[in-house]
């Protein structure tokens, strides 16, 4: 029963990614999902309703990522989460440009987006603290050092794909992961380095 709806949503996300939300018409979405506009209108009355449904699904996916936190205690846990972030951000690229487009800071989806990014940052900070406590990362040399690192990781997670895309640089999951692990690498202590070499480095080549 929901198959048609999912098909429509997937088609819309594909088109939004390529052309931006504003310039996609219902006709195009109907063509992309191989159905008539009438049939499409049966499922989603207007473009606004459709956009809302797309957003809703995006936020569901986004929130799902947060559950992958410390399911296991080693570094691979983070690696798994990075993979999921990659899948999420590469599939929903259109998303970011929508948020940076205008100061629509009162729109409900903008507030949700802000909420999600705040959570993302908190989780990164908390994860770094955990790694420090577990002796994987060296203790802080200067106050605020890991705060900065969390911000840097956040920016890489969010902006890597759209910016690579923008400057026409090839990217894939490996280069995405490399970028983040390279940020972390200089901070590893001896234990962390050993674990990094055993668990993570093989994945990156």
């Amino acid at each position, binding site marked *: 029963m929901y198959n048609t709806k999912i098909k429509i949503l997937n088609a819309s996300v594909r088109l939004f990614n390529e052309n931006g939300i504003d310039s996609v018409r219902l006709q195009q979405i109907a063509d992309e999902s191989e159905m008539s506009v009438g049939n499409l209108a049966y499922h989603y009355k207007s473009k606004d309703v459709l956009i809302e449904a797309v957003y809703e699904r995006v936020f569901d996916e986004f929130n799902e990522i947060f559950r992958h936190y410390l399911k296991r205690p080693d570094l691979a846990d983070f690696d798994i989460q990075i993979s999921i972030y990659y899948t999420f951000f590469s599939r929903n690229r259109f998303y970011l440009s929508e948020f940076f487009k205008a100061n629509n800071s009162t729109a409900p989806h903008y507030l949700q987006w802000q909420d999600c990014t705040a959570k993302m940052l908190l989780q990164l900070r908390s994860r770094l603290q955990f790694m420090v406590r577990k002796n994987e990362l060296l203790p802080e040399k200067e106050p605020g050092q890991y705060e900065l690192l969390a911000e840097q990781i956040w920016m890489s997670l969010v902006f890597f794909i759209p910016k690579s895309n923008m400057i026409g640089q090839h990217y894939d999951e490996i280069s995405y992961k*490399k970028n983040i692990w390279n940020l972390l690498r200089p901070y590893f202590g001896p234990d962390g380095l050993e674990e990094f070499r055993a668990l993570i480095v093989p994945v990156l080549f």
Partner: protein
Amino acid sequence: MSKNRPLKEALTTKAKISEAALFLFNHFGFVNVRLQHIADEAGLSVGNLAYHFKTKDEIVELLYEEIIARQKNLLTDLRMIPLFINLNSYIDNTFLMQKRYSFFFTDTLEIMRAHAAIRKKHREHIQWQTIQLKIYIQFNIARGALHSFELPDSIENFSNRFILLTDSWMGYKILQGEKISELESQEFRSSLWGMTAPNFSQAGKNEFMQMLAYPYDGLG
């Protein structure tokens, strides 16, 4: 003489328009500004404005050229004397430049999507930027201020990372709900140096500490 005057006047009008456009883009977002608004801000009629710039795209292209020219200047300075202190002033000046043209750095994705011509130029520009930065890092590794990079990291990865951070920092801060006018160059600096610091060698550390101790030394 008589030929020169109107030309000069045209230039100043053009400058006036681009200033007005820049102000509006920065405050209201690139997509929200229309030619009518720019004309009002510059104190011209739309018709007069259309004589100088036919579309909004032309204004953006002009502004983009300005940004590139400034960035090229900054990087060329860095290339002549690639010490830490020069990177520091490069970072400071980049910050000022980003603040002046903040609309471009917050709306980059949207502008790139809509303007194929700028996208093409920007790709080339970023490649050029990456190469400059690579040369800078190579030099600093050679003179012993930075450690060399160990796989899976490389100079290329680092340069990409550095530029990614430089270009997306402002977007990040906006997302945190901060106002562009209240951003401090100090934060920008510590963010970028924070990324470089783990690769300092002992000599690099010393140089960095000395630079912090005598902040204006050699800045001229």
